[in-house]
């Protein structure tokens, strides 16, 4: 490489905003969230209760129309504590770390929800500090935002239910 050659760098800022349609199933689900209600779609073929609800069960290749109620309590099926700063896909801002994450099988659903899991003391500025170790099979419950907006982050995080 020749040190005397100055390399050209062309900076371009990408600042695009798309408008996404929720679809009928997600619209009903989101409306439910605003009333602290969680609903899943059940496949009439295999009986699997899907979160997020979507038009079709990909395994059976059947349209789904059968809604079932789901609780805001569930079981931790997988967990991690993320130490690396990660971008929030909505804001483009880095999320403060560390924070707990889990796959939660809500009572009444068959798929799992990926969401923040509180692993220790009180949540500050979206940060969940590491705390007592999490384990698969642990019971958890949703902690809801006070003012509900009909979006997935109406659930702030899941907290461990003491046995």
């Amino acid at each position, binding site marked *: 490489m020749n040190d005397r050659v100055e*390399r050209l760098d062309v900076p371009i800022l990408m600042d695009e905003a798309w408008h996404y349609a929720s679809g009928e199933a*997600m619209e009903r689900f989101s409306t439910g969230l605003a009333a602290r209600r969680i609903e899943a779609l059940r496949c009439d073929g295999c009986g699997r209760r899907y979160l997020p609800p979507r038009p079709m069960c*990909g395994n059976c290749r059947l349209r789904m129309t059968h809604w079932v109620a789901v609780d805001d309590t569930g079981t931790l099926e997988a967990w991690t504590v993320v130490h690396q700063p990660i971008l*929030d896909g909505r804001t483009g801002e880095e999320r403060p770390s560390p924070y707990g994450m889990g796959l939660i099988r809500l009572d009444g659903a068959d798929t799992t929800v990926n969401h923040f899991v509180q692993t220790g003391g009180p949540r500050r500025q979206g940060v969940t500090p590491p705390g007592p170790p999490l384990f698969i099979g642990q019971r958890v419950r949703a902690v809801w935002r006070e003012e509900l907006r009909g*979006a*997935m982050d109406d659930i702030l995080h899941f907290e461990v239910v003491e046995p």
Partner: protein
Amino acid sequence: MRSVAVVGTGQTKHARRRDDVSQAELVREAADAALADADMCAEDIEAVLIGNMELFEGRGLPELWVGGGAYGTGKPVMKVATGGTSGTSTAIAAFHQVGSGLFDRVLAVGFEKHSEGHTQTGMALTDPFWDRAVASGALGNFALSVSQYVAAGHATEDQAALVAVKARRNAARNPHAHLQMPDLTVDEVLASKMLAHPLRMLDMCPQSDGAAAIIVASDAVAREHNPRPAWVKATATRHDQCYIGDLDRRLLSMRTLRDASAHAYTQAGITDPVRDLDVAEIYEPCTYAELAWYEALGFCEAGEAGRLVEKGVTSMTGALPVNPSGGVLSTNPVGASGVIRVAEAACQIHGRAGQRQVERADLALATGYGVYAWADVVVLGSEP
């Protein structure tokens, strides 16, 4: 399908940042190397396939700009993109296009120039209603799945660290590899920074700038251009449902890779993969994934993968060397990573793998992994 073979392979030097070249020049570097390897000139190429995940560079339809770099100008060009399997899907698409009879010589090239974009932003563009608020990239997703794999007793962190050591030591013999660490030890892996429990820095693949190309040819052309063409014995692709929560115990079940490899083994007449295969280049985005893939690929029984790596079965001198190149753990330009797997497998059959050459490579496996569990499987052999 008529007989089809890989007759030439080419790769760039892969690195964290290749700011000495543009994206088109990066692709050109790999294409030129593949053409030279196949003893062909650009005019011989009849069609081009390009693999790339363009949002990582903040682009759309990048083949419009980069296609010329792949000698695509004035030729039929298509771009393939399927997440992590982009590269293997691009290679399989090339096999099908030559297999069709429409073309006799096709160049397939995959590339990624992560340093020119913002990969995390690209990774963050998931379902805006469901998990964009909480998604934590490939790292978070893998950590979740790995927690289940570890809890089920299928691997220890020491066994995972052995995979990291094997990969980076192998990479030291691969002149193209990004991370080359000939003296890496298990202790160093275990001392590396915790990224997302239980995944440490050295458990994860890097982000690399790089490109890789293969030249795919029909029967007669293949024999003319390579004394030992790498014949396509089998291919299989399986996609899956699209949310991480849809896939129960992903690493433990991995139904896509299980089904795809079973299908490919049948096509290729493989009954015992560790005995029948001479080398494997598998797409392992993290150490634990390599162990999980051993199980899904039938290299061992469920829960035995850790012992396989402990016994050195998959080391360079073992019964089935896995990733002599250093794998994705050492080099990961996403759109190229799958092409690299196929190129490395082909290169082994050609007998041109230099210091990373395994002994007597007559049957080689290459796999791709993408999104939450998409799988591609390719088997190449020294006989058509």
